[in-house]
């Protein structure tokens, strides 16, 4: 069970049970949908961006504990950040979740998001953790594409 505890850390279980910033955002001026065609998970991210800053963010959707907690923690992490900072977090998170399990992990600057360090041990679940972030990036970049994990 040790790997499992590493994956399902208390913070993740807490955010799964009580997702933060869940629902639609009235003041949103950017939005994007994401889905994981492999499993049918769907997520919607609403953003309010003013003067290059993420003023507010919310998400909605149905997914597993990993994707729900990842979305919830993501909204907390990017709220109040500049767009450039949010995109840098996306890069760091992506590295954290997809790095080679035999290599040391770099969790600098990730704060609470480091709880997803265990995901890389579960290759089939990496996409669950990264889907919200791909969707966020699409919302920021306003590409209008549905984010996919494939």
């Amino acid at each position, binding site marked *: 069970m040790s790997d*499992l505890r590493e994956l399902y850390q208390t913070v993740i279980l807490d955010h799964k049970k009580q997702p933060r910033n869940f629902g639609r955002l009235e003041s949103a001026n950017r939005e994007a949908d994401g889905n994981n065609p492999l499993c049918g998970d*769907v997520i919607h991210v609403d953003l309010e961006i003013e003067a290059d800053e993420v003023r507010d963010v919310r998400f909605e959707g149905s997914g597993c*504990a990993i994707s729900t907690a990842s979305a919830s923690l993501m909204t907390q992490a990017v709220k109040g950040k500049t767009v450039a900072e949010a995109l840098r977090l996306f890069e760091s998170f992506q590295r954290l979740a997809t790095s080679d399990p035999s290599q040391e992990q770099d969790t600098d600057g990730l704060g609470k998001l480091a709880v997803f360090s265990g995901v890389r041990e579960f290759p089939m*679940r990496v996409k669950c953790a990264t889907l919200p972030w791909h969707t966020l990036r699409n919302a920021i970049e306003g590409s209008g594409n549905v984010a996919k994990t494939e």
Partner: protein
Amino acid sequence: MSAARLDIERVRKDFPILQTLARGKPLVFLDSAASAQKPQAVIDAMVDLYSRSYANIHRGVYELSERSTAAFEATREKVRSFLGAAETREIVFVRGTTEAINLVASSFGRARVGEGDEVLITHMEHHSNIVPWQMLCDEKGATLKVAPIDDDGSLIVEEFEKLLGPHTKLVALPHVSNALGTVNPVKDLVRRAHAKGVPVLVDGAQAVPHQRVDVRDLDCDFYAFSSHKLFGPSGVGVLYGKAEHLEAMPPYQGGGEMILSVSFEKTIYNEIPHKFEAGTPDIAGVVGLGAAIDYVEALGLDAIAAHDHELLEYATGALSEVPGLTLVGTAPEKAAVLSFVLDCAHPHDIGTILDQEGIAVRTGHHCAQPVMQRYGISATARASLALYSRREDVDALVAGLAKVREVFA
């Protein structure tokens, strides 16, 4: 007549993979509906062909080609007998159920379905029995109609009947639902469709591993199944079609083997079934399928059906006792497929935790998103049983689900 019982421990010894470990624990394989494991006899048949009897078929005049061709064509006869078809020429080898359905959609369907016509399917289809018909309907300006299912996952036969209208040109339905396990009353449904002059294709992918199928008794026009769900290799499947249809249908793909003569002005197509078998097929795959059919016939399809049914009842009882578990698909007539959701955990999380215990289940939408939508869910966990499954597998699943609760409750 009571069927001979399967000697499960002996059967399990036939499957090398069941002797292996998963995550350091004895493998508990509960995903046979996605793809079944292979007995040694199938593996040996393929190795033997490649080691001793392999050459291209229907080509050479030499001994090896003769042996290879004989092994390939012997399987066609085995399939004919397995399905109860009238003639071997009604058996077409394809890559799988998906290709079989695509073949019928693009050959039979294109010739038969026109603007304003309708194709009728059911709400419990696998994507492979939706998308080919959607593509056909889009191309022709026809409409795809969907017969509804009720809360337990049974087809609502009266609604199906009502949807059989003057514009219905074809019906496609599953014998057994992959996501719900529902066994459809195919013979009755075919009779109703035929009464209105509508031909029927049956997706038999989930039926053939669990029960005896007799296409002449069902009287269906087409029947499709995949080798890999029947303990044979992947990459091979079968389309049964009534000879009168196959003969009237235009070819599906052009190439070698499907012709009698070719000039730049005109090509004369081969006789059925070869008309539909362009190019060199998966020869060893077909031979492996033949060995799989020999294997299930030797165990006895009645004995397999009795075993699967008994284990399904045991598993249904055991899972019903699990706190917070809801079975999705509880039709009175069911094959050994148990789809479920837990109140405390998403199917993916269930799958990951079970995997740590060496238990393989399928999680997700099972290529049947409309079924998920019907029940207002995005995914289920699915345990599916096969002839090598035993009560201990079900017990391990129940114990694994207790671990899931430990993590999430």
